[in-house]
């Protein structure tokens, strides 16, 4: 109980920092802002064979993407940076610090994702009247996003614990971008070759996007999806599977990484960083 209170308190303080520190705020909103702008510029285009705008079709995918970016690359980056500057070692030096640290990152990431989702949704609803938000749809949105965070944050923690140096973050970001390209967010997955569809469906990004599309798009648009269905049962299954795998794998990886943190390691990393800077 105490750990949860400390961790959520920690996350809340960091959410406040994001909201009051403009470079962070800019970074947090950059992705959503650009996406919405692009979608807005292509509002004249329609989904082939319908009068539905292509922008409205893509917007839910953007929301799903937002959650995945925050959960995977976002958490990976947070962890890598916190290891380099000693925040993690500080947590280790504090009683109950590691648990609170992890809960804090989960709170921060979930909070940021929630802000992103709400903001994108509100702006999207203003820009694209074609979206159909119903009570059932909102309910679907809530469970998909919650499960999406559960499926991605542990992955981010595991990846962030494996990366020894923030410079290697590109090793995560590049494959992540490639997977996004084939995840049906910007381009209907049914238009991709079969083997790419297969790969895309292995990863949580696709299922997050599909779930959010199911929540926000009119029912008729499921015709562009695989099997012509929202396949919500599979969304539930796939995201739960990733969440279970992540929750199983992340704690021991994180623990092993944290166990090895010490003052001399942080100092050595700092020295390397300084050498790079000069």
């Amino acid at each position: 109980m105490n750990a949860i209170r400390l961790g959520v308190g920690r996350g809340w303080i960091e959410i406040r920092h994001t909201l009051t520190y403009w470079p962070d705020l800019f970074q947090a909103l950059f992705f959503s802002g650009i996406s919405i702008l692009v979608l807005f510029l292509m509002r004249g285009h329609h989904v082939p064979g319908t009068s539905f705008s292509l922008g409205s079709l893509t917007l839910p995918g953007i929301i799903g993407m937002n959650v995945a970016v925050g959960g995977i690359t976002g958490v990976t980056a947070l962890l890598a940076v916190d290891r380099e500057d000693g925040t993690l070692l500080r947590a280790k030096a504090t009683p109950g610090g590691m648990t609170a640290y992890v809960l804090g990152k989960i709170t921060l990431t979930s909070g940021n994702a929630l802000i992103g989702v709400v903001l994108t949704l509100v702006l999207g609803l203003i820009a694209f009247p074609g979206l159909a938000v119903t009570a059932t749809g909102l309910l679907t949105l809530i469970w998909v996003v919650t499960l999406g965070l559960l499926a991605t944050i542990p992955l981010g923690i595991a990846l962030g614990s494996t990366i020894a140096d923030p410079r290697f973050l590109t090793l995560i970001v590049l494959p992540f971008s490639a997977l996004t390209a084939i995840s049906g967010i910007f381009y209907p997955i049914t238009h991709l070759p079969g083997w790419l569809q297969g790969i895309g469906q292995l990863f949580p990004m696709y299922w997050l996007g599909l779930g959010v599309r199911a929540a926000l798009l009119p029912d008729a648009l499921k015709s562009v999806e695989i099997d012509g269905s929202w396949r919500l049962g599979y969304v539930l299954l796939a995201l739960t599977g990733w969440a279970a795998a992540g929750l199983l794998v992340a704690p021991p990886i994180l623990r092993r990484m944290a166990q090895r943190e010490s003052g001399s390691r942080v100092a050595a990393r700092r020295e390397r960083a300084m050498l790079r800077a000069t």
Partner: protein
Amino acid sequence: MSDVAAEVRDLRMRYGAKEVLSGVDFSLRTGEVVAMLGPNGAGKTTTIEILEGFRMRSAGEVTVLGQDPARAGEAWRARIGVVLQSWRDHAKWRVRELLRHLGTYYARYGTPEIARPWDVDELLALVGLTAHANARIGTLSGGQRRRLDVAIGIVGHPELLFLDEPTAGFDPAARREFHELVHRLTDTERATVLLTTHDLAEAEKLADRVIILAGGTIIADGSPDELALRMSGNAEVRWTRDGQRYVHPTDQATKFTRDLFAQFGESVEDLEVRRPGLEDTYMELVREYEQ
């Protein structure tokens, strides 16, 4: 509270084929300030990190506040304070915000004898950061940041505090303030302090006892005075006579001075007897060891 804060017996550490610590023995008595000195690579950091519970040892027995740091839990962690050299963490947080937040972790570990955590405003005043309480930590100067690190290290009222080169990069005024802070801590809190430093004047001033580590073993262990006495052979007598300055090294300073007065009487002026300081002792011991 036990009389012994930490006990180290035959501590060994090896990385691959390289033995960094080859049988280190020492103990820390409760309330004592101990300075660990030694050339770079002597194993100081490794030793302290093992005591802090941040590093697993290869062999030997280590007891810190009654427990093995390799296995101790969070309640033990709450009784330890750590101040490292290279903190850059929490740059976006504000000074008071972070101290208050980190203090709450210790609240459940308070005892009737030791209230935890330290009151934040009192702590800010103690380390001289009251004026910067609402500053973003990333904007602090090096010395201010260091004082914040000390404040974080003691926010849980530690019974044992580890300080790794606490005044590196301090100007003389900040250094003096820091020394006063450590004295206040040990006088009023009865905390035990283990510090590493390369500043021998600092060790002489702060430490009740000095441990010198070289090549993975302890080559000297005693109060700064005891260590200096070992070298008393090399005292130096200085005086002036008839406007002329004289310097004479001797191993019998008292006898030499007596003879000097017997021979020249009142014409001896500005007499000075210089005993070797910790610095001379340290240099001598390390040189002896290396030969």
